[in-house]
């Protein structure tokens, strides 16, 4: 392109003058601002803060005893709204250890707007944390919670109108929130719940479920007992046949339960002909021992040293081969960030500076670039040697 005579105004000189006026024009604009206090916090920032608080405090206001479990009613002036199925991470200091556990919010989100959450804590085998809570939380105990987290929620753009929920044991909790949300109109879908318990007496929320089912035809519950035969109850484990028996023609499957239930279902689900889109699984906390995974290449009896860097300080702590790295950090009294504790959420993301680790493929929720760059999620990573790790405390 050859040069051509460009001008906007009749002569080019006036265009150049226009250019020169740019600064005085902007100067005048900058003088026109208000003298209000300067802030970066507007309504939408406050909305973000109230939906996603960095931390929440609540007080135990009621304890509902259940078989080997308690439901804690937590109250505060204000608690973050959430989506039925989400969890909060409860922060705890037990003896010298600092730790946290995810607990599903087991009541309708509508109650959160009135300052109420409910969580159910069930006695677990070797349940260091559940034992502590069941023995120590009393009326008036102040608890520290994260904001609501997790993607185990109904999404109409993705899911079918009909949901089949498979719950095992305390895995009933997200479905309690969903059922309550359906009942009060917060959510709009139909839920058929297959709920596996050992015996009738082990069923959590039996009465509440009965009440909800009586009040709405959108929620249906089928109890499945593995160690008891009783009339009106299914017997055995929840498998393909049982799902087919109760499921509507098209549905999305939601699964929440112990690791053993997921393992059993892994053999059953192919028989249902569902694609991946129609199967939603709640995270399953990482098992404590890495020997659970067939490809574990280490020796679980080994003991190592973890050189931990945080905020520029260096600390050396003992590290067992047979527990997730996060557990070692927490036992040393260090409040490392964590939320889901199953490799997925990435809150515990830490920088591995040196050493060999084992990350089971099924728990590897890291970003692709983190794999190359040496970042790990210590909640679901086990040591194979002495390690050097940098964590970023909250």
């Amino acid at each position, binding site marked *: *392109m050859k*040069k*051509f005579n*460009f001008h*906007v105004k009749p002569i080019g000189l006036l*265009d*150049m003058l226009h*250019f020169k006026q*740019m*600064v005085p*024009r*902007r*100067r005048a*604009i*900058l*003088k*026109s*601002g*208000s*003298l*209000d*206090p*300067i*802030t*970066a*916090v507007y*309504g*939408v*920032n*406050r*909305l*973000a803060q*109230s*939906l*996603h608080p960095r931390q929440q405090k609540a007080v135990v206001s009621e304890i509902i005893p259940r078989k080997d479990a308690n439901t804690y009613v937590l109250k505060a002036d204000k608690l*973050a*709204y959430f*989506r039925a199925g989400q969890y909060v991470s409860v922060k705890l200091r037990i003896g010298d250890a600092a730790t946290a556990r995810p607990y599903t919010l087991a009541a309708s989100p509508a109650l959160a*707007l009135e300052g109420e959450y409910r969580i159910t804590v069930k006695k677990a085998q070797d349940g260091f944390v559940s034992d502590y809570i069941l023995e120590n939380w009393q009326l008036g105990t102040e608890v520290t919670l994260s904001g609501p987290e997790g*993607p185990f929620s109904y999404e*109409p*753009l*993705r899911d079918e109108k009909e949901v089949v929920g498979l719950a095992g044991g305390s895995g009933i909790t997200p479905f309690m929130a969903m059922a309550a949300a359906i009942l009060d109109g917060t959510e709009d879908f139909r839920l058929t719940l297959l709920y596996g318990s050992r015996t009738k007496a082990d069923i959590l929320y039996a009465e509440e479920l009965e009440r909800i089912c009586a009040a709405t035809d959108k929620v249906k519950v089928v109890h499945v007992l593995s160690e008891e035969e009783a009339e009106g109850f299914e017997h055995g484990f929840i498998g393909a046949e049982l799902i087919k028996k109760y499921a509507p023609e098209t549905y999305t499957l939601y699964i929440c339960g112990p690791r053993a239930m997921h393992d059993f279902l892994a053999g059953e689900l192919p028989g249902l002909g569902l*694609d*991946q*889109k129609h199967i939603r699984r709640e995270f399953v906390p990482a098992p404590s021992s890495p020997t659970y995974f067939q490809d574990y290449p280490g020796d679980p009896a080994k003991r190592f040293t973890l050189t931990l860097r945080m905020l*520029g*300080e260096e600390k050396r702590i003992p590290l067992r081969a047979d527990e997730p790295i996060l557990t070692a950090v927490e036992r040393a009294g260090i409040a490392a*960030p964590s939320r889901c504790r199953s490799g997925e959420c*990435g*809150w515990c993301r830490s920088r591995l500076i040196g050493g060999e680790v084992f990350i089971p493929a099924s728990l590897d*929720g890291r*970003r*692709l*670039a*983190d794999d*190359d*760059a040496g*970042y790990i999620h210590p909640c679901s990573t086990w040591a194979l040697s002495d390690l050097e790790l940098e964590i*970023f405390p909250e």
Partner: protein
Amino acid sequence: MDKQYDIIVIGAGNGGLSAAASACKRGFRTLLIEQHNLPGGFATSFRRGRFEFEPALHELCDVGEPDSREEVGALIDSYGAEVDWVRLPEAYRLIIFGEGEDKIDAVMPFGKEAFIDKMEEYVPGSRESMEKFFYLADCIMAANAAVAAAGGNADPKVMMKEHPDFLKCANYPTAVVLRKLKMPLKAQKILAAYWCYMGVNMEDLEFGFYASLVHKYIVNAAYIPRYRSHELSVAMDKTIREHGGTILYNTLATKILMEDGAPVGVETTHGSFYARHIIADISPNAVFGDMMDGGKGLPEDHIRAVNARKIGGRGYCCYVGLNKTAEELGVHEYSYFISELSDTVKEQELAGTFREHPMQATICLSNAIPDCSPPGTCIMSFTTFFMKDIWSDVTEKEYTAKKREVAVKMIRDFEKATGTSIMPYIEEIEIASPATLARYALVPQGAMYAYSCGEGDGLMARLQMLKEDQRVKNIRFASGYGPRLYGYSSTYMGGDMAVKLTMADMKEENYEKV
């Protein structure tokens, strides 16, 4: 840990990462603090199910190939950051699905000649005006280079002599110049596609900026990192550490510590750190407001100048992982711009409302990186922006439904505009609203586009007012709120520029490194 630094960089977004890398490389003791647990700000990634999504980047210009790097690619190389760049397949497909005359469907290629040829095919008779457009764009690029070579202080007489065409066209609104070039209206509309990357309509957006943006994209093509923006951000994190920099994540800067009208340090949620020079990769609203007691004690002119700035487009994006391939879906392009109307003034006005047809910049990542998700699947994202702070009025209870409502409109519009079916194949979906941006990046009003570069607050005016825009000594801005504007390439350049300006500040007071 060490408390004393030469430079503290607040915020590890693109600008902050670039500033920290630039400062370390120059031998300054540098502390980079970031409130989130990841580097990158918007330049990150997130996982849902078997998909890893790109939250923000559509296309990064000025990268170039390894043996012929452009400005931004060369800068990132110079930091020692290793990124696997993927060149994008085409410039864009623009679909205007309005009524009657207001219908366009154009797929535009990279490369100046190919772009002009294609435009002539869609709009016969547009060639001469398009050639003139690129001629002026060349003039602007040459003038920008001359200004940069003169360290920002180009001699006006030299500029008038050497770069008269630049001075004659650059400060007019883009539409005014295109009309003067007698560009056919339809060609103007097709050429306007990138306007939504700035959120400023063509009757306002300055030609000097827009022409150089088009030039950069079309002449040199655009790129993305293979493993999402997170790859770029972790590569920067790595190089900063290798050059001796310190990075603290999960650390929120709460207060600028001042003495005699200049900063001496920053108070954070993990204690105070000290430096006489601050580079902020956050908004002036946060620095001079929330971190300086609302601006109490600052000169009135300063408070007015911050409050006069207009927050730009507030970001919204819906991400979907689909259980069909892009080919199966009939989604053939990487980058789509889709809107109801071709009139960018009206579009910008309607973007201040919860409108029926939000304009959208839509990406099908799989058409640039076929293995970005497992076989049989693909990844798409639907981005729009809001030109008014309307999400501030949304309640907690309404929030999820509101996010979803916008997503439904955008996906339906995409389906209608392209004759495809997307909705039944959604395996994973996540929606980021302005509140999501506010959550993760703490940006005012959920702004994706910092301070708007429209209404007289454009690039050239900001660059000419560098000196007077520095209202507190020794604080410089590397963010999109700073002199170089928003967008990945701008903030990368802006981070380096903030360090150069800091060095000038240091020189002025004979600063000696700690």
